[in-house]
Each structure stands twice: as C-alpha cells, then as structure tokens.
C-alpha cells in the first residue's frame, strides 16, 4: 500500500453538501480546516483557526462574503484578511491578521483543497456532469480504502451486474468504478491516518443513488472489519 502524498489535491466535501452561507469544519491529515461558501456561492477552504484566540472558525457564521468568528465576531474577507474587529469598529485591521487559505476548487461535484503551497490549477481531472450520492466516513486508513476499492465488487442490480465493473484511479485520491453507461466516482478524503471519508457521485445517465449508498455501507463494513484484524 503506497502512502498518499502529503502535498496534493484532496476532496473535502460534496459540493452539494456545502450550502451558500454556511461553514463546516473537517480535517485533512489531522489538520483542521473550515470549508465555507459565501453568499455568492463561492467556496473557500481555510485553516480552521481564528487568529484572535485560536477558536475554530467553522463554528462561526457567514455574513455576505465574510466569515465571522463566533467568539468575538472578528470578520475575514474572501482572501482570509481580517476586515472588522467589532470591539474597535473604527480601526482597520492590520494586514498581518489573516487566516491562511488553502487552494481550493470545485470539480466533479466535489470541493477539493490542496494541502501544499500550490495556488492554481486544481486536480488534473476532466470536468463532467455528475449527481451527488453521499459522503460516508470510514474508520480505516485512507490507503486501505483506496486499495480495497480496487477489488470490491460493484453494486448489483438491474442497472449493472457485479461482473462487468471496471476500476480506475485517475488521481491519487479518486477511484472510478465504471459499468456500462455510468460510473461511480469516489473521492477519498484522509481525515487522519486511521479515518477517511469517501465522497461519491454518479456520472452518466444510469445509476440508482440509494442502491449505491447501500453498497458503500457494505464496503464500509468490509473494510472496517479488515482494518480491525
């Protein structure tokens, strides 16, 4: 099992799960991040730590294109720059008060963030229309989920037997399970070395979301049982 690269693009949420005007906390390799959308629906991924007293920004709230910290209301603009300190409304906050943003992009129905210093581009994956299925947290190393997906039989049902599934990994954190006219795209988010989240979407005309969701639950059961052994 090859370890996942520490500096790379990783999915952090299904795009449909982050509503405009909301902030959500999550993790990448144990690093706490906040994923939020401003009221114009632009996604942002930042370090989940308020420069004031270090509280988690994911507990805060979105005001227009600012993210406001819950604790003392400091507000940060889309670049992470502090713009308002309510206790000193006349003061314009110095440039040094800034939340470090991660490079982020929306692609294939998922939000992606880069864990290194890369600032542009996005994951080298071609955009195509997709429908969200679900995100599912799994208590196993992300590498174990990745390699186990390679030989876990695809969902059975009217829209594809388990025999004709093909599996490909076009990026270190993306697995494509394909059958006939549709494919299940699964992005793997490493929360830590022992826990990951699979973000699943369907591309193509076929595919039953509920059946794929149940299939993912079976996968979780299998891979967690193996992780315990």
């Amino acid at each position, binding site marked *: 099992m090859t370890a996942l690269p520490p500096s790379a693009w990783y999915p952090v949420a299904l795009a449909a*799960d982050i509503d405009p005007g909301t902030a*959500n906390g*999550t993790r990448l390799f144990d690093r706490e991040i906040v994923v939020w959308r401003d009221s114009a629906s632009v996604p942002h991924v930042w370090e989940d730590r308020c420069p004031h007293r270090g509280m988690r920004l994911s*507990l805060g709230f979105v005001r227009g294109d600012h993210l406001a910290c*819950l604790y003392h209301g400091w507000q940060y603009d889309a670049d992470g720059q502090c713009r308002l300190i309510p206790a000193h409304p006349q003061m314009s906050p110095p440039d040094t008060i800034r939340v470090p943003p991660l490079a982020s992009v929306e692609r294939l129905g998922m939000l992606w963030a880069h864990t290194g210093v890369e600032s542009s581009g996005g994951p080298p994956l071609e955009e195509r229309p997709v429908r969200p299925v*679900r995100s599912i*947290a799994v208590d196993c190393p992300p590498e174990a989920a990745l390699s186990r997906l390679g030989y876990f039989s695809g969902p059975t049902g009217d829209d594809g037997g388990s025999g004709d599934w093909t599996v490909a990994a076009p990026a270190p954190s993306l697995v494509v399970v394909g059958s006939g006219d549709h494919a299940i795209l699964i992005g793997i988010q490493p929360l830590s070395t022992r826990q990951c989240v699979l973000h699943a979407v369907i591309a193509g005309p076929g595919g039953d979301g509920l059946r794929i*969701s*149940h299939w993912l639950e079976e996968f979780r059961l299998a891979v967690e049982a193996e992780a315990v052994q």
Partner: protein
Amino acid sequence: MSIVLYDNELDDGCYKVRLMLAALHLEHTRVPVGTGPLTPQLRRLNPRGTLPILADNDLILHGGEAIAAFLARRYDPLDRWFPADDPVLFGQTMIWLSFGAEALRSASVARRQAMFEVEAPSARIIAAARTSFRVMEDHMTARRLTGGRWFVGERPTVADIVLFPAFALSGDAGIEHDAYPALRHWARRFRTIPGFRTMPGIPDYY
C-alpha cells in the same frame, strides 16, 4: 391548565422537553434543578431519580421521550407532531423514540462524563455514541436520496425533537460533525422550526 417542568439547563433530556414545549407554543413554568442527585421531594415524583420531570396538573411524567410524546398527543390538535393515527408513521416514530431513549444514551453519558467528571469518557462509550450517530446518518442519507427531509414522514415530528439534542451537543464529548453531513443538514433545517431555541453548547446565530 398548568404545566411545570423540573428542568436542568445543561441536561440534554430536559432540552428535548423544552424543544417540544417551544414547538407547541405551550405556556409553562420551569423549576430550575441543579446538577447532581435529586432531592427526596423530586424523587417522589420520579423514583428513577432522573430529569426531566413534568407535571401537568395532577399528572406526573418522567423521561424526555415519554414527556415529548405525551405533549404532542395532548396539545397538538392536528396530530402532526406525533402522527399516531397512521399505523405506519406511528411505528416509524416509535423506532426513533426508543432509539432516543436507548441508543443515544451513550452519547448522553459520554457528554455528561466529559463535562462533569474528572475522567474522560471511555473509548467504548465514545464508540457506542458514534455507532448511534452513524445509524442516524445512514437513515437520513437514505431519506435524502428518496426525497425525505425529516426522520419520519413529510414534516418534523417528535422523532426529530428527541434526536436533535444528542447530535447538536456531541461536540461537548469531542465528537465532531464532519462524519455526518446528512445529519448536519438536518440539524440546520431543524433550527428553522418555529419556536426553536438553543441551549448552552449550541451556538445561537443565523
């Protein structure tokens, strides 16, 4: 009519009842009770020695699920909050009422230990709480994929009321919400129920 709730502000079981009272817009009196063992007088009202306890004139009830279900049956003339006349919806609602009282007890115990006891909750109790949240997450994921927005039926019910506190307060026991996107959505929607109120540990914004 006189409803009295023996209430501890930090107790998640009492919060279930406060949410139900608020959703039904019911006038009531709250008698604050401290954390710790109940007084002999309160023990007479509930031999189990636990909160919440509700007095509705001469009737005394205890247990968050029982009280919420009772309030919904007695004070919701349209039977929306506890759709007990439809056997299917009744059965489905009962699943989550007993889940709230049984499976989610682990979440409640973990939180109480994390907040009030010297020793941190055991790995076993945290794992049990996470397993319960996972059952809820899988259910709400399936609901979303088939067009549902609430635990049972087409509108919020007493099932949502008794499940909300444990999930919303899970951070007190160190259980983050990032593994439960479907529940996060549901909890956000829950906050829009008219009469919704927060408690300590649940941020008050929006």
